[in-house]
Structure formats: C-alpha cells, structure tokens
C-alpha cells in the first residue's frame, strides 16, 4: 500500500490485518520511490509471490501515475502476477480517465475506503480460497 497519508496507512494496515477469511501480509510505503525499491528488490530475487498493489495518486516526489509508468516497464510477466488498484480522494474526471492509459490497472478505489468493499474486492480476486 503506497500512500503519503500516515493515518490512512495505519487504518489500512488494521483493516487488512483483520481480514477474516485468511491471513494477509501488508507492506506500507509512504512514497512511490520506496515502493519501487521494494519491487526492484523482489524482481532481482525472482520472487513471484502475487500481490495486490494499492497506490495513491497525489504524493510527493513521485505521483501514482508516474509509478504506473515505471511499473509498465517491468513487463507483462511481472504485471500478470499483480493486481493493481488506484486509491484516491480525487473525484476529478481527468484522474478517472487516466486509468484508461494503463490497461494493467484493475480498478479505482475512492477514499474514504469502505472496509466491506475492500474485503469483497480481495475475495473476488481469490475465488478459489
């Protein structure tokens, strides 16, 4: 989960930890650069554990869109392992339309995050479990 909002990170962390169906591990990043460092490392270690990525748009140093540009270069092998969601408080049309440029993005989650909806989203990604 990549968001510069410290409070959201705390709440999000708690939400994921209390997911009732099965245990989930959560990595929190306050900016996109740190998150990319993590993915770079994971790639070098040939770690192919699937992940769900939640990224805020409006962050310092690097925006969520810029991070998407970087991820795009990781290639389809990497992207197919990932489910990527944008989380933002922005209701602006331009942000919504921006998603169309990144076909590998799975969805858009509006803040404030609703716990029930978040759980449903995770369950739908893992129908087998």
């Amino acid at each position, binding site marked *: 989960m990549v968001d510069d*909002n410290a*409070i*959201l990170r*705390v*709440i999000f962390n*708690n*939400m994921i930890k209390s997911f009732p169906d099965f245990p989930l591990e959560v990595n929190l990043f306050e*900016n996109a*650069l740190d998150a990319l460092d993590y993915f770079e490392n994971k790639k070098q270690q040939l770690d192919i554990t699937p992940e769900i990525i939640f990224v805020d748009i*409006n962050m*310092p*140093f690097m925006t969520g869109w810029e991070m998407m540009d970087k991820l795009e270069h990781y290639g389809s092998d990497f992207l197919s392992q990932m489910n990527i969601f944008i989380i933002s*408080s*922005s*209701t*602006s049309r331009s942000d919504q339309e921006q998603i169309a440029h990144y076909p590998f993005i799975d969805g858009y989650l509006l*803040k*404030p*995050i609703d*716990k029930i909806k978040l759980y449903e989203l995770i369950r739908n990604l893992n129908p087998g479990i």
Partner: protein
Amino acid sequence: MEPHYHALNEQYSYPITLGVEGLLALDEEGHILSYNEQIKLLLPIEKIGNKKFQDALIFYRVEDQSIIPIEELSFYNTLQTGEKQIDHNYGLMTEEGDFKWLSFSSKLVPERSDMHMIIAISDVTKLINENKDLLEKKKQLQLLVASLDDLVFEVSKDGVFINYWTSNSDLLFYKPDEFLNKNLSDLFPLAISERTLELIDKALTFNKVCKMEFISNFDTHKGKWYKMKIMPIHLTKDRVAIVVSDISEKVESLEKIRFNQHKFNQAFHFSGLGISLTNLKGNCIEANKTLSKILGFSQEELSTINFLDYTHPDDLEFDYKQRQKLAKGEIDSFTLEKRYQHKLGHYIWCSVTISAVHNQFNELSFFIVQLQDISDAKKNREILERQKHELELVKIELETKVKQLEDFNQIVAHNLRGPVSNIHMLLSELKDESNIDIKNEYLDLLKTSNDSLTDTLEELSEILELRENKNILKDNCNFSLIYKKIYSQFIGEIQSKNAILTTDFKVKNIHYPTKYLESIFNNLLSNALKFTDPNIAPQIHIRTYVEDNNTIFSIEDNGIGIDLPKFKSQLFMFRKVFHRGFDTKGIGLFITRYQVEALGGKIDIKSAPGQGTTFLVRFLTTTT
C-alpha cells in the same frame, strides 16, 4: 602587200560622213589595204602591220570590259557573211592602260575591185564614259531611294504628279498609273489638296521648304500620320519635290508622352497625398496643394524651403541614409514614418514614400516625395496601444485569478479531502472496533487529523487574506534594510552552514508592502539555506536590477538544485515537496507566489539538479 597610207575618197566614208571617221579598206581575208588620215589617231596602225585586222588587236566589251572573241566582232561578221554592221562599240587598251572606246561600222564594197570591205571607225570614248557615269549615278540613286522610308514625288507647280521614288510601293496611296500625270486635287480630299497647292505656291515663290502634317483617310493607311515637306528644286520654277514621311510612331510616342505628362500632372496636383519633387539635397522643386495644406506653407514658401530643415531631428538620419541609397539606385523607393515641422512650429507625423527619378544617363534627376498626414492615426494607435497594455494587465490579473482558483480546487481536492476522509474512516472504524488499544490509537489519529485539518484551514485563510488584501498599502521599501533584517533572522543557520552571502542592489528601493517583501525575502532565503549541497560551501548571491523597465529581485544559490522539467509545474503549488530528507511543509513558495502575484508580479526559477537554483522575482512597474 604592205598596206600604205592612202587618201580615201569621201565617197567611201559611208555611212558616217562627218569627216572625223577613220576608214579602213580590207581584202577578203581582213588584211588592211589602205586607211585614211583619221585612222592614225584612232588605231595603233604600226602594231597591225601585215596581220589580219581582226587578229591584230584585242577588243573589249563596253559592259564588263571583257575580251571579245573574234567571231563576235561585227566587222568579222561582215567579212564572213557580207552583212552590213552599224555602230558597234568596242574598247581598245591604250598604252596608259585606259580604254579607248570606238564605234565600228562595216560593209562590203562589191562596186570596187581594189578592196573587199570598208570599216568606218569613230571615237566614242567620251560618250561611253559619260554613259557609264550616268549609269553609276542611277545605281546610286536607286540605292538611295531604296534606303529611304519616305516617298519622294516630283510635282508640277499646278499639282500634277510627274515622277515618284520609293523603296516600297506599298507606301503609296495609289498605284503609280493611278496618280502619275494626274492632279493631286483629283486624288486627295479638298482639305489636304488645297493646303498642298498653297504650299507649293509658297515654296516656289519664296524658294523655301514648306511643311505640313496630315492624317490619312485612305483605308489602306488609315489613321497614319504623315509629314509632307514641299521643297523647291534648284534652278527650277515649274515643279517641286514633295517628300512624304510616315510619322505615326513619332506622333504616337509624343501622344503617349503628352498623356503621361497629363496623367502625372493630374495625379500631382489633385492627389489626396502631399507630393513634392525635391533635389538630392532636399530642396523643394515643386509641391502640390495638399502638401501646402499639410505643412501650412504656401506654394511660394514651399518652393524655397529645404525639407530636411523641417524634419524632426530624430528622424533625420534614417531619412538621409535611405535617400542616399535611393540616389545610388540600391533601392527603388522607401516608406518611413517621420515628423515634419508645421509652419506654426508643431510636428506632424507623416507616412512618407520617396522614389527616385533618374535621367537617361542613370543620374538622379529628382525625388518624388509623397506624404500622408497620419497624426490622427498615430494618436489613435497610441490610445489603442495604451488600451492594449491595460487589457494585457487585466488579462494577466485574470489569468492569475484563474490559476489561483485552480489552486484552490487542488487544495480542496487533496489537502482538505484527505484529512476529512481520514476522520470519516476513523469514526467508522471506531464504531466497530472492540480492541481498546486500537480504539485509543484511532482517537489519537483523530486528533492528529483534526490538527492537520485546522492547520490547512489556517494556511488557507492566510492565503485568502493575501488575495483579499489587493489594496494593501505600499511602502517605500529599501532592499538593503530588509536584507539586514532577514539576515539577522537567519544568522544561526548561516553560521552553522558557513554560508557566504553577497548582495548587489542596483535598484535601491521599491514601492511594495513591507510585510510582503520581507516574507518573499524570508521564504526564498530560507529555501536557499535549506537545500544546500553538504559537499559545497553554500554561496548565496542576492541582487536587484532593471530589465525591460521592471525591477528584478534575484536570489542565486549553489545548492542541490531541482529537476525543473519534472517539477516546475508544481513548484509554486500548495504543499508540494520535492526533496526527500528535508523538513519542509511545501507551503513557502506557494505563499511567496501569492505575495508576488497579488501585485501583478511574476516569480520564476532557473535550476537543474546539482547546478544550484536561481529564483527571479519580477516586480511589475506600473506606468503611473
């Protein structure tokens, strides 16, 4: 038998009996039997000796001086056939190399037993030579006529055509047999013939050349102009020579010149533009009425003035230079806007077009100067310029306003919505949460969110205050004094970083709200001191100067710099942070921008990573 001199009787001298002929008596073969006294003057008798006469001498043709073969000689023909031959002219070469021309007549004399044939010879050299001269003259005359474009007639004093000469009979109005020996009054319209007869009379009476011009009515020469010269002939009183020349081209070109002259005159005198002809030095040669009206001088006054004396001193140089170029033929014409001094002393803005007129030797004859009073247009243009300038200011202000509104949109979207959505989520989590530790944590977070929201609202109201405070009072601010004050505020940081600050205030003072200027100083210096490169001793140069009439405040550092292509659009935005590891809220530049833009100024930045940063504040200098 030796031929001998024998006084031939007159009766043998037939056919010519003037007594000047030479007479030769020949036998059947052509040997000379006898000759008279005259022959000795005509023929080299001693050269002939015993030879046959036809073999003894070489005879030449009159026409081309070629040698005549014996069988073509007339007397040989008589000898051969017995036929009588009269007056055949042959030439003999004299010892001097000239030709002597002789006429030969011959016949047989059967009534005489002592001779077979008689030849009468007479000297026709004079006649032949005269004839030759005449032929030569005739040839020359023909050549002369052929070279003439004119028609030449010989006309009797009564007007009858006697003769004509022309190189081209198409030039004639009638065919030769239609006009020769006819009176011109029967051939030409009354108007022409009457006048012609008068002039013939005059030419003969006063022995002088008379001329008239007329236009042809003949279908074959319709509309052509002719000049007729009636010339007396030397020592002749009963006829004249009439030379008729086609002058259509001349008339046409004269007409063209007259038309052009007329056109120019009309254009010159009735033009809505002021026009003058001036010499190279600027002296007026001629001027039209419109020019009088524009400059206030009468025509007489204008004709004595030099226009360069009445040109605004600031406009002289360019005008003069262009005139020189024109005179040298480097340009055909030029147009400039310049000020002429009116007779009353004030200056008038004119749009002036000057062209040069050169003579056939390509030397400058005069300038044609055309000028239009554009004072009103100039005045209107100035008003428009001023209005345009005002509009531009309004536009800048509006653009700034729009930009600021967009900023607020952003602030609402990101800086207010964030904490609000946090509070929303915390409240909803608190409701469900049973773990007391987490509940307490959430309550703490609620407080933090609330504080953050309050901070943001405070900052926003600070900015709103700036926006509302448009008519804030301006003070006379001294850059040096403000610098000293700000320097003292940062003294701790400057010393701890060993920063070197230098200043150069070319502009000493500015009318600006002191509070704003201090804040701008503070924020920019704070930035320069904050984003320093730990490996380089910080150097900060602060200066003011004038550029395009605006006061520029610049602060240049040698710090870490910033990747402008990436960040520039967000640099002056609310709560934007670009550097990791610095304690910064990202609000300073946003406030600074507002403090600059609130009074119509602009803030800009030059930077690159590792290259330092220069902030440039352009304070708007109002024209008032």
